[in-house]
């Protein structure tokens, strides 16, 4: 434990650590996406997965190709797109809420036969 802490604070964090975090975040997102019925929670889960991907992008860029910046750019794009997506999604969710007074996905079966 002490070793790990030492390396952490000495600025030599291994890439596995970043991957570990992103893995946990991603599966937390997957789990949330699959199990949650509230649309907002689903949205948050999606964001979690996206952010996990962002962490991977930056970590790999930093460790594998330190001379380049594509990974960071990609992460920035993702954040921007995620923001747009969230905006649209929340707009839809609000509209749904106005119509149905509910944001549970189980209740959204009017379009089904």
């Amino acid at each position, binding site marked *: 434990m002490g070793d790990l802490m030492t390396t952490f604070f000495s600025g030599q964090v291994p890439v596995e650590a970043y991957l570990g975090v992103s893995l946990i975040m991603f599966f937390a997102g*997957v789990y949330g*996406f*699959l*199990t949650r019925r509230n649309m907002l929670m*689903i949205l948050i889960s999606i964001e979690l997965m996206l952010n996990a991907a962002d962490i991977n992008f930056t970590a790999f860029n930093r460790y594998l190709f330190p001379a380049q910046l594509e990974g960071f750019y990609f992460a920035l794009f993702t954040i921007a797109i995620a923001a747009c997506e969230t905006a649209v999604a929340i707009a839809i969710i609000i509209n749904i809420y106005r119509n149905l007074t509910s944001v549970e*996905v189980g209740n959204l*079966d009017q*379009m*089904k036969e």
Partner: protein
Amino acid sequence: MQYTLLILALPLLNFIVLGLVDSKWKPKVAGTIGTLVLTIVAALSYYATYEYFSFHKVNGVFEKLMPFNMEWLRFTDYLHINLGILLDPISVMMLVVVSTVSLMVHIYSLGYMKGERGFERYYAFLSLFTFSMLGLVLATNIFQMYIFWELVGVSSYLLIGFYYTKPSAVAAAKKAFIVTRFADLGFLIGILLLSYFTKTFDFEALTSGNASVFAGFTGVSFMGISVLSWAMALIFIGGAGKSAMFPLHIWLPDAMEGPTPVSALIHAATMVVAGVYLVARLFPIYDLYTPGVLHGIAYVGAFTSLFAAIIAVVQTDIKRVLAFSTISQIGFMMVALGVSKMGGEQGLGYMASMFHLFTHAMFKALLFLGAGSVIHAVHSNEMNHMGGLRKYMPITNITFLIACLAIAGIPPFSGFFSKDEILTAAFQFSPYFGALMTFTAGLTAFYMFRLYYSIFWGKEHKHQHTPHESPLVMALPLVFLALVTVFAGFIPFGELVSSDRVPFHSELDLTVASISVIVALFSITLATIFYRKESKIPSLLATKFSGLHKAASSRFYVDEVYLFITKKVIFNNVSRPIAWFDRHIIDGTMNGFASTTQWGSLKIKGVQSGQVQQYAYVFLLGTLVIAALVLFV
């Protein structure tokens, strides 16, 4: 003799014209036109007969003439239906019979059917029938005969069902058509078999005695009987259906639902003898190749004759008595053909059969027209509604008596001569046969006089209107036919019609003649005792032999057997299950396919739920499976 074509064409034209104008003309006009056309046809027929018998004998043999023969429908290179006219002694003789009786019926109907609804239709149908019957007798080939055979069947259907609002008439018409149609199936299959092996439909080729025509049949047999015998037997079934031989006779008594003149024309004189004519037409084949079938015909004829005579004794509807008498008499003709051989004296039966056909047509038509006259007067068919009519209807009485004497076989009336020839032929064949036929002849005399006395003598029944003699148009045909009945016996028939077309002279066999006359006289005396005055004997006998009496009155339950077979067996146990099977099994299978598809799609539909989370779950599982596969396999 090209003009014989007119004999066929005129009635057809008449049918078309009368059928098309329907009720646009006055009934009287339609009737008169119909009768006039028939008069021309009859005149042409008589002239043709005169010309044929006088001028067409070559080397002592009557020629076979074919003044007209055109191809109507070609099947194969050798099989084609021709429509044409064949003149030989029997067809010319039939020409006379058909046109005479038809003319008489046309005239008679002017009075009998007066004021009936559908008078024009009646005359149109009569013309159709006359055309078909003439086409049948003049047929040059077996298929032409079949064509007209069907046409007479349908004319008979239309005329029996003339009173189409009466359910019994409709049922009778249907029965007549279906029973004869069933028999015609036999005829058709017979034709198919015959033509398959002989490669021809032509009577000329079939009956010329040329053995090479039948070479195809050599060695072909089915169930141990040669196929030619099968074919000829099947053809005879067709004839038996039309000629009401047992067990296909059931339609004829019911056919009496038609107007009485129709019964006289179709169900007494002409159409019902078509079967006899058919056998006579193909007689050389029967005689040369299938004598077994020919003997079978004799047995069927004899049985039918006796059977029908027994039933006729107890019937109370006068038209039914006559109907059974007709069946019985046709049985006589069949017997005569069955016991005959080809050529000269050997062919006595053949000649006798044709002779009896001729005389029977005349006196039976007379009997029916007389009965019609009676029915016209008392408005009933039942014997016990009649009695004592001789005072009111002298002409009908006398003519009816003449016909009864003729059918009973009393000389010098025509029936005596023809029946005597038949009995002679039957005795030559086998004494038992002769005896049986003589007994039947005795029965005939008995029931005919029972009929006669019940109508014209006996106890007078109270009538609402006093019965009156029929008008002149109805009396005239009676008188004419009575005259023919009196004198026709003296025609030297053997000189005109014989099995090999060589004239021969037939002598009266005095032994047979005297036996039959004695039997007939005895029967008549018996009938006189029983029925001339009111007598207790008939009812006593009826109670004594109540079983037989009841069975005979219900016509030996043959109708019930038929009803059982058709209704219970075929309709309920074949047709109904098939209809059910079709709706439920076959169609059920088809619908089953449809509902299986529907069920399947319902089940699969659940997969595409629209639930993204569910998709993602499946997606994730799929990814994991693939990952596992990539990693571990």
